[in-house]
């Protein structure tokens, strides 16, 4: 009996201990005490104080979106930008200073290891349906993005590989944990919230069910009305919670934004000329130089602006395959670079509308080495380098050595580039180098280059916020197919620099390594940079107004109505509208206006 009692007592103790432990299991996670909360209310605002509210902004899209979802099948259309432009994240990046600025979070903090970032939410933040934005909505983002039911493998993968978890401390405090330490942690963990109250559960019906549902958002506008195949109308929220935020003030000024479907560029241009749409992008030389020579511009009813920006430029140019015998020799690579008369192409074919790209990583702010200058067309230098390596000019003027001619194949895939290449070809002939142009269908060209079968590839890479070197220049990726090291760069010193760059968590160190790597790329000389287009050009009716400095360093469009980073800077001027309408009726012209804004022109 005693024994049983003792036994019961023992069990009781265990139960008691367990019970007393339970509250600990469900306890709120506690915020570390040693973190330093940061915010930013010092950077300059980039909007214009004279901006007025009002007006209807009409613009056009080529096709009606196939869905209003932003993930899942058919969601990756250009219209997705308009929807996501009205979804704020935890934090933003100031387009001119590149510092972190508040969006949904007012304060943020880093842990020592650069793995966790803490956020304090703005207590005023509201969804478009009036519900408050809570920390749980960010936890839900992770659940949502990892769900198989959204049919978006890329997001499934990204939110598993990059983000470890979201820790909710209370309704307005959270932390986002990355899977590994990151030098630019804030670029990875600045999540967007997803409204849990709207989606409740995600199951296999998701794709169909939410095809045309309008998801609540946190940005300045929301879809008010649409007709499939015809138009989508956005209306500004009457009392948007963030309208007095330092970096949102005097922005997002128009009341209504209408996207109409116009299926053809030429027809779109006619719509613009009739005033049916308000702005038209005239970046293309044909439009800027020729098509805008019409009365509405000559009479000043519509105006043009050429705005230089300073964003990451695509690394466009000629990529020399160092696994080919000719390009094993550095002198020959240098000679090749000096034989490319890029300046002549810019000057006499491209109407000086393009600019010389000096190196592969221009526009990355402090990460760009501005001291590097691309090798210029120089026949003497070509001769010097060639003779140094023991080559001689043959009977047809092309360099020769041991029966090999300096004749290389240039693979490219865009028809419009033929005219640039034929000029380069004729000029290279003067330098004694023969280019054999090979235009391939784009997928065939991609295959050829990615399998490293090319001599010279004429192509450009897309950009990212920070320069990526490992994939393009590390020897791990050389001499094998299906990697982006298409120059087959294999240099131990370069590997060391790239490894250090990848492993460093210190910004200053990374920057100095970045500059060194770019120098090294220039020294290896397997990439001949060609062109960049560091600007946007727009035509607009004169009642549309832009800030004194019309955009930001990062603006790739001046009339983007949404977008928390650079959008919504323009406004509608009712008085000018009436004045213009009257003048058009009376046939009274205004002086024509063409603005060239070089505030952010890359030097």
């Amino acid at each position, binding site marked *: 009996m005693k024994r049983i009692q003792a036994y019961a007592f023992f069990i009781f103790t265990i139960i008691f201990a367990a019970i007393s432990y339970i509250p600990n299991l469900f306890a709120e996670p506690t915020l570390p005490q040693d973190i330093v909360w940061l915010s930013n209310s010092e950077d300059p605002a980039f909007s214009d104080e004279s901006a007025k509210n009002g007006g209807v902004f009409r613009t056009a899209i080529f096709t009606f979106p196939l869905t209003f979802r932003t993930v899942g099948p058919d969601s990756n259309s250009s219209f997705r930008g308009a929807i996501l432009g009205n979804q704020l994240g935890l934090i933003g990046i100031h387009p001119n200073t590149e510092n972190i600025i508040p969006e949904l979070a007012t304060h943020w903090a880093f842990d020592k290891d650069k793995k966790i970032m803490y956020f304090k939410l703005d207590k005023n933040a509201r969804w478009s349906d009036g519900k408050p934005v809570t920390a749980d909505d960010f936890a839900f983002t992770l659940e949502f993005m990892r769900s198989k039911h959204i049919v978006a493998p890329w997001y499934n993968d990204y939110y598993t590989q990059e983000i470890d978890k979201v820790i909710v401390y209370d309704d307005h405090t959270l932390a986002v944990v990355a899977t590994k330490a990151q030098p630019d942690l804030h670029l990875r963990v600045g999540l967007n919230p997803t409204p849990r109250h709207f989606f409740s559960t995600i199951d296999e019906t998701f794709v169909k069910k939410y095809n045309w549902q309008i998801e609540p958002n946190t940005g300045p506008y929301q879809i008010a009305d649409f007709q499939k195949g015809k138009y989508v109308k956005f209306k500004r929220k009457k009392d948007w919670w963030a309208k007095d935020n330092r970096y949102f003030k005097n922005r997002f000024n128009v009341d209504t934004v209408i996207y109409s479907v116009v299926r053809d560029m030429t027809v779109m241009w006619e719509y613009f000329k009739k005033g049916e749409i308000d702005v038209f992008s005239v970046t293309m030389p044909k439009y800027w130089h020729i098509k805008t020579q019409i009365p509405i511009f000559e009479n000043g009813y519509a105006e043009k602006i050429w705005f230089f920006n300073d964003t990451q430029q695509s690394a466009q140019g000629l990529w020399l395959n160092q696994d080919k015998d000719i390009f094993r020799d550095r002198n020959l690579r240098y000679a090749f670079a000096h034989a490319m008369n890029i300046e002549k192409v810019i000057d*006499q074919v491209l109407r000086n509308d393009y600019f010389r790209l000096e190196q592969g990583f221009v526009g990355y702010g402090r990460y760009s080495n501005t001291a590097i200058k691309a090798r210029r067309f120089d026949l003497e230098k070509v001769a010097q380098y060639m003779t140094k390596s023991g080559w001689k000019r043959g*009977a*047809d003027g092309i360099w020769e050595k041991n029966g090999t001619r300096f004749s290389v194949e240039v693979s490219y895939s865009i028809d419009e580039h*033929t*005219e640039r290449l*034929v000029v380069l070809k004729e000029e290279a002939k003067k330098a*004694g180098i023969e280019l054999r*142009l*090979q235009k*391939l269908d784009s997928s065939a060209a991609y295959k050829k280059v990615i399998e490293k079968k090319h001599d010279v590839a004429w192509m450009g890479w897309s950009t990212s916020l920070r320069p990526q070197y490992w994939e393009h220049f590390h020897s791990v990726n050389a001499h094998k197919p299906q990697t982006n090291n298409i120059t087959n760069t294999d240099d131990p010193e370069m590997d060391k620099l790239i490894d250090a760059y990848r492993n460093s968590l210190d910004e200053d160190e990374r920057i100095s390594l970045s500059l060194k790597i770019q120098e090294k790329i220039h020294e290896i000389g397997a990439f001949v940079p060609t062109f960049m287009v560091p600007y946007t050009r727009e035509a607009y009716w004169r009642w549309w107004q832009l800030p004194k400095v019309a955009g930001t360093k990062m603006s790739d469009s001046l009339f983007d109505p949404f977008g928390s980073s650079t959008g919504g800077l323009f406004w509608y001027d009712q008085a000018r509208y009436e004045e213009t309408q009257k003048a058009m009726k009376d046939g009274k012209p205004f002086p024509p206006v063409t603005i060239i804004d070089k505030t952010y022109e890359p030097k």
Partner: protein
Amino acid sequence: MKITPVTLKKIKRFQSIKRGYYSLIIIATFIILSLFAEVFINSRALIVKYNGSYYFPTYRAMIPGNVFDLGYDYETNYRALQKQFENDPSGNFVLMPLIPYNPFENDLREDTYPPFPPSLLEKHYLGTDTIGRDIAARLTYGFRIAIFFSLALLAITYGIGISLGCLMGYLGGRFDLFFQRIIEIWTNVPVLFVIIIISSIIVPNPVILLLIMAFFGWTSITWIMRTMTYKEKAREYILASKALGATDVRIIFKHIIPNTIAIIVTFAPFTIASGIVALTSLDYLGFGLPAPTPSWGDLLQQGWSNMDALWIAGSVIGALIVTLLTVTFVGEAVREAFDPKMYTIYE
């Protein structure tokens, strides 16, 4: 070579059809002239006299500018040299061809952008294309490529088509049945698409393009030859030569083919015309010969996308009309001259 009276009669008859006869003269002149295009249309001078020695750069290896003390290693710019010698008292001179441009060079200028309109002064008699290349030069060199391409295509397709067609007709039976089915399948392959697919994977050089087009182009003449052979085979003279012990090969080559030559000749000009059209349309679509090969299709494409530069589309369409028309006229005249009805003798 002995010309039989029958052939002579046919030639006489052909000559009497004026339209076809003159067309033949025109097209033949074009072809012969295009063979020597380097003499008429070229950036290299015909004759240079410099410090007492004569140079003939046209058909020889490149002469670098240093030979004329111009201070550069690349090919002499003869147009500039000519200007330089204009007022030269020492008797140096440069004689340039009629059109002093080659089909590849870009005649670009400061502050103005091609295409440049026709100009007698600049010697761009038909203007330039969108990259400043002389249109007359590109038309001529493009013509040379197109016509010889077409002739080669003709030779290959007729070579295959005639031999196979003859064999089918002559042997008959299962061989005939088998190849009939093969050809039926073959003709159902959409040739243009196949070429487009192939040339998007590999860049065709002229020889490859020729082989691809011949590969699919030999079928049409086969049917005709097969029918003709069946008809001829049943004739008495074939029976006679068989009775005399002639081999099949001898019968086909000595008797049947010579007796069907009229048909072959009649079809040939039309095949040439369609060869030119096929090459031009492939180039137009961007799947023909690689840039910067001078080509009519490329010019047509440029003309289409630059309708305000009428001289581009005008020149190439004019050239196409003249070529196709003359070739077709020749074909018509040949058909009429070889028309067997004129000589049929009824037994």
